[in-house]
């Protein structure tokens, strides 16, 4: 029944099943009965859609950036198709990302405790204990959140400026030149961020599962996000 309890506290109307369905507990699953729901199905789908879009954008961008990677373009059928695809996917990513991010901004507001976390971040990375995290996200995740917003906005705007044949012809050459440079710089910052993001997910075991299956163990929750865990346990609305 713990499972049922946990379900009820997560704020996932998407995951809510119609009552007439057969009860879930008869279904064989690796999910322990006391697991804590961290990401709803909708969040996970959106996340992975964004991730897929990013992968496409990254690969195609990489192919356009450096001739060494041009072969990647053939994965798209033809380089020209890849070039046509890239901006459309970019717009798609923008929409998905903002649809996703719009719901998370409150949880990503910095709080006083975040300062301590950041101060102890490198120590944590070197194997010391993590500073206590009060919200759903730690300060590193919040920093990632806000930097991604800046990056995506930047990439989207600059990308649109250099979008042939629809927008670029209307943009003055200097604007296109600046846009192209910013696009590239942001793409690399974003790559670095995404790299850290992926590595952090891999490094903190259980995180991947959280984003794939939606749940974390109680221990994981208590260890990484004690504040959040407490509130979840107290059935408070998590902010």
């Amino acid at each position, binding site marked *: 029944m713990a499972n049922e309890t946990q379900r009820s506290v997560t704020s996932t109307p998407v995951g809510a099943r119609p009552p007439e369905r057969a009860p879930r507990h008869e279904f064989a699953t690796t999910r322990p009965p006391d697991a804590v729901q961290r990401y709803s199905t909708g969040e996970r789908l959106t996340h992975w859609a964004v991730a897929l879009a990013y992968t496409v954008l990254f690969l195609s961008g990489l192919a356009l950036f450096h001739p060494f990677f*041009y*072969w*990647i*373009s*053939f*994965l798209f059928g033809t380089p020209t198709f890849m070039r046509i695809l890239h901006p459309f996917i970019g717009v798609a990513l923008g929409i998905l990302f903002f649809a996703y991010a719009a719901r998370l901004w409150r949880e990503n507001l910095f709080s006083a405790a975040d300062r301590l976390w950041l101060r102890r971040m490198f120590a944590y990375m070197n194997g010391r204990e993590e500073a206590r995290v009060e919200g759903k996200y730690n300060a590193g995740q919040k920093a990632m959140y806000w930097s991604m917003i800046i990056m995506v906005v930047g990439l989207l705007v600059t990308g649109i400026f250099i979008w042939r044949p629809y927008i670029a012809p209307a943009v003055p050459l200097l604007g296109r030149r600046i846009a192209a440079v910013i696009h590239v710089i942001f793409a690399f910052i974003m790559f670095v961020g995404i790299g850290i993001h992926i590595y952090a997910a891999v490094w903190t075991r259980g995180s991947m599962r959280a984003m794939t299956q939606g749940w974390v163990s109680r221990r994981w929750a208590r260890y990484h996000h004690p504040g959040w865990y407490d509130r979840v346990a107290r059935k408070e609305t998590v902010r």
Partner: protein
Amino acid sequence: MNLSRRQFLKLTTSGIGATSLGALGFAPDRVLADVRNFKLASTTQTRNTCPYCSVSCGVIMYGLGDRSKNAHLKLVHIEGDPDHPVNRGTLCPKGASLIDFVNSPHRLKFPEYRAPGASEWQRVTWEWALDRIARLMKDDRDKNFVAKNAAGVTVNRWTTVGLLAASASSNETGYLTHKIFRSMGMTAMDNQARV
């Protein structure tokens, strides 16, 4: 040769790898660029003269086909004749685009007739058109030919049908035109020189 299963796998994967890398564009760069084919390679050349202004630049016309019976010779390109002492291969914008005159969508392809009061052309045969023109001309000449003037001097002129000769037709055409129409006693004959 004895291959362990492990070795075998290694070989085949690298083989597959190499092949797919080739497919992915890791093949060595092609060194030659694709230059557009030289479009005059096997065309038929004919010498001509630009028909526009009176500089009369020499031109060379390039035609598709080799004049064999089944190839319909179509001009595809015209450029200046480098031997020509006046234009030395150069052409003005009109001359350089002569091909668009020769192949203009407004070239006339068959005889047409516009009946009195009509607002459309109708396609006719050469036979019909020339027969009718000849008839109209003869009837008018027979009716209006002036053999003698009021003073009784033989004047043998026909003033009621006129002709304007071209300014770009050949000397031979001009000469024949003059010979034919003057023989009819035509006086109202002029060419573009007057204008």
